[in-house]
């Protein structure tokens, strides 16, 4: 990628709602290897069990998170869309995806390299703290939503 392309991707990363309020210099450092990508309907973004070497900022489209077993078709348990972040397996050992992610609509994301991100978080603890304070509510929301799903609130 040329310098203009890198600058454009860095601007894109900074415009994502997840990064609003974080130190732009360190966001730029964290996302120096970031890559803008598009996926067509049905394309897989990640596969369960594979190394989680990146995470995704979603700018357009819709992504299904699927779980399943080898003897059963995948079941979509959550969808993620514009303005959301996909993945925290890259942050938690053993850094392997716990689910499949598949594009349900034409999808545009920025993929951020996990190793660069982990390095930035470790090298700049204050930034790391603020980053985790952004990520934790996302995780908490999804945990709460999963609990609510278990309550069968759309049932009779």
């Amino acid at each position, binding site marked *: 990628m040329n310098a203009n392309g890198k600058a454009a991707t860095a601007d894109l990363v900074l415009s994502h709602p997840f990064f609003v309020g974080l130190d732009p210099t360190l966001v730029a450092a964290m996302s120096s290897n970031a890559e803008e990508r598009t996926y067509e309907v049905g394309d897989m973004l990640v596969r369960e069990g594979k190394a989680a070497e990146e995470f995704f900022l979603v700018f357009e489209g819709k992504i*299904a998170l699927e779980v399943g077993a080898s003897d059963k078709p995948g079941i*979509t348990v959550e969808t993620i869309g514009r303005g959301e972040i996909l993945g925290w397996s890259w942050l938690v050992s053993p850094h392997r995806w716990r689910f499949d992610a598949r594009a349900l609509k034409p999808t545009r994301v920025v993929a951020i390299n996990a190793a660069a991100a982990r390095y930035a978080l470790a090298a700049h603890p204050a930034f790391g703290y603020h980053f985790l304070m952004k990520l934790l509510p996302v995780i908490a929301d999804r945990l709460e939503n999963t609990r609510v799903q278990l309550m069968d609130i759309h049932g009779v």
Partner: protein
Amino acid sequence: MASDTLYPFGRPHGATNLSPHPYAPRPFVVKGRTQETGDTVTLRLSPQTAGDQLSFRGGQFNMVYVFGVGESAISISGDSGHPEELVHTIRTVGKVTNALTALNPGAVVGIRGPYGRGWPLDSARGRDVVIIAGGLGLPPLRPTLYDIFRQREAFGRVEIIYGARTPKDLVFYEEVQTWRQRTDLRIQTTVDAAGRDWYGDVGVVTTRIPDSRFDPPNTTAFICGPEIMMKLTAQALAQRGVPTDAIWLSMERNMKCALGFCGHCQYGPSFVCRDGPVLPYRTLAPLLAFKEV
């Protein structure tokens, strides 16, 4: 003629053509039957006696009687602009609803009603409207949607969020697809879990609220579904800034007389049949905080 002796606790709201006696059902003939989902059926009914058609407001209900089996409170799911056809959407959950969903065209049922307070659509004029339904919560909201469509210019943004367990549990599926064609309406449909043939959202209805485009302080919300869904949805809307007196829920309780006599449907200080079923969240919030009320 109905008299105050027959309705000592007040006449059902908006009812202009009540039964001669409040407990006397009027015969209606099943004209059509649509299988909505595996356990849910829509019946289209016409009065057996000419002139016996019911005028109603969205959110009201009837007591529907299967002769020899029993009576059940069922919300009206049809169009108040076409009172010649009375529509009920029924899920099989017990003896009476099992009998109702098994009826075929030509069968006769007894109808008492309409009863209860419907959705306060007049209070939403000039405001954004968000309609949130869970499971079989869409049928009681459909008459109000028809009313909104008829006078669409009277309202601001209109959003529908509709959630079900699975794609197979979505009722009025074809009709909802036609609503999607409208440019003056935004619909988000979500399910708890789905296979690979579903391209909509997956997650509970509350997860769709952040992606909505209504202006919270200027929004009126109508919510219908299982009580836990309504509670969590109302909380989420209030947290977002929708005034609690502009959030309306349709409560479901065991209704027997439907006239405010028997007390089976008492919920705190209210009889759901008479004072509801549509009640404001501001009133309900303290009660919803308690379990098993």
